[in-house]
């Protein structure tokens, strides 16, 4: 990994999350029937932050869950090293909800494809929307985000690193050239 460039700091991340929270409420005309599901690991932390934000605005608790997509990956059968299976925790009924799926970085879209497959096994939401902190382009599937914190045009040679307080001890988004 060569030199890293910071493209979002703590305040930038906070502002992006606050704006996403407002946009979610606007699009869904309030928070009734709304739920959030974060994709492990960092998507879960972002989902919880959005949930806290919405609660401050709407004074209502938003059901928030965690989804592990490992078992639904399309590259499980390929030699990509051993994936770690983590816990899925969706302790509420997703049927007929407006469900917002949350992840840190949107790239090829394959993670989201796997997440959609997983969610359908839990029920039939009224709608599934997608919120991401960073959209870095290079989609390999017909998938787009409804709510984006920041669009970052990248080359495939670069890597985007999202660091969050909950998992990494600091809030920042870095971009670096792969060696």
């Amino acid at each position, binding site marked *: 990994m060569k030199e890293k460039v910071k493209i979002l700091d703590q305040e930038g991340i906070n502002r992006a999350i606050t704006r996403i929270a407002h946009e979610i409420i606007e699009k869904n005309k309030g928070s009734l029937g709304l739920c959030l599901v974060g994709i492990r690991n960092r998507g879960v932390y972002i989902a919880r932050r959005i949930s806290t934000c919405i609660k401050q605005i709407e004074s209502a608790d938003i059901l928030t869950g965690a989804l592990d997509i490992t*078992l*639904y990956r399309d590259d*499980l059968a390929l*030699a990509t090293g*051993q*994936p770690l299976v983590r816990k899925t925790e969706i302790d509420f009924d997703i049927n007929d909800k407006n469900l917002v799926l949350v992840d840190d970085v949107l790239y090829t879209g394959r993670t989201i494809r796997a997440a959609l497959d*997983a969610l359908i*096994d*839990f029920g039939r939401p009224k709608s599934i929307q997608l919120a991401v902190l960073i959209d870095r382009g290079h989609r390999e599937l017909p998938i787009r985000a409804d709510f984006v914190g920041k669009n970052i045009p990248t080359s495939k040679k670069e890597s985007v690193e999202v660091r969050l307080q909950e998992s990494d001890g600091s809030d920042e988004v870095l971009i670096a050239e792969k060696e």
Partner: protein
Amino acid sequence: MLWTKKDLLGLEYLTAEEINIILDTAESFKEVSTREIKKVPALRGKTAVNLFYEPSTRTRVSFEVAAKRLSADVINIAAETSSVRKGETLIDTGKNIQALKADIIIMRHSCSGAANMLARSLDISVVNAGDGWHEHPTQALLDIFTLKEKLGKIEGLNVAIVGDIAHSRVARSNIWGLTKLGAKVTLCAPEMLLPPGIALTGAKTSSDLEAVLKNADAVNVLRMQFERDENAAFPEQLDYFKKFGITEEKLEKAKKNILVMHPGPINRGIEMSSGVADGRNSVILDQVTNGIAVRMAVLFLVSQARETKQGI
């Protein structure tokens, strides 16, 4: 740390880290069985063969349920109705299953070491579902998983294993697994059911059930395996129940929240009373539920490991 083994043959061959990988993965898999659609596509397109040379219902069904919840296809072969009757050797049977392009063989056999031998001869995964008096690794893993789930940890626990130690692969796998994770194991049985040399494993032995129960956080009660050795001496049943059977009266002197476990099937009135089997300390049915998550984890890990190896 990554899982690298294509086979699961026994807990003797695993490090504490590897045992913990299985337990952690099982914890993630447990949730799958609570869903309305109890299935994930992780092993879609894989074939698992249940090759059972000994009668078994719960272990075979548990493996079958686990494989199906991972979307694998499952084929059951019972030795009594297969070409084994025509004299086919174990390795030939295994190589034929491999030639059918199956991915995992789950085997139970009455000979100790049978799974090890098969694993050496094949490229596909072998999971030991019990070999002779040697090991029954997934049973011990589900016992340990249940202990950890109920008591929060394994290290420092006092676990008593009571009953037919001599004929028990469950006891041996439990001793290996529990001691590697830092628990203290005490074996309690009449002398004729304690195999010579068992103390070399690091487990203590005792024939004073009352003292053992007093100190234990959990007691794993083994089944009397009358069928395993027709020539062996067994204690007279009523006499055994009186001295070593777990009853409500004996549990009164134990820790209040002692866990009572049993790998099943229970001989009620020999190893334990019905009151204990169905009582508040019993976690016997939790063990059955946890067995599925543990076996899902094992099937998932061994099949991933093999692919990683071949993929390079």
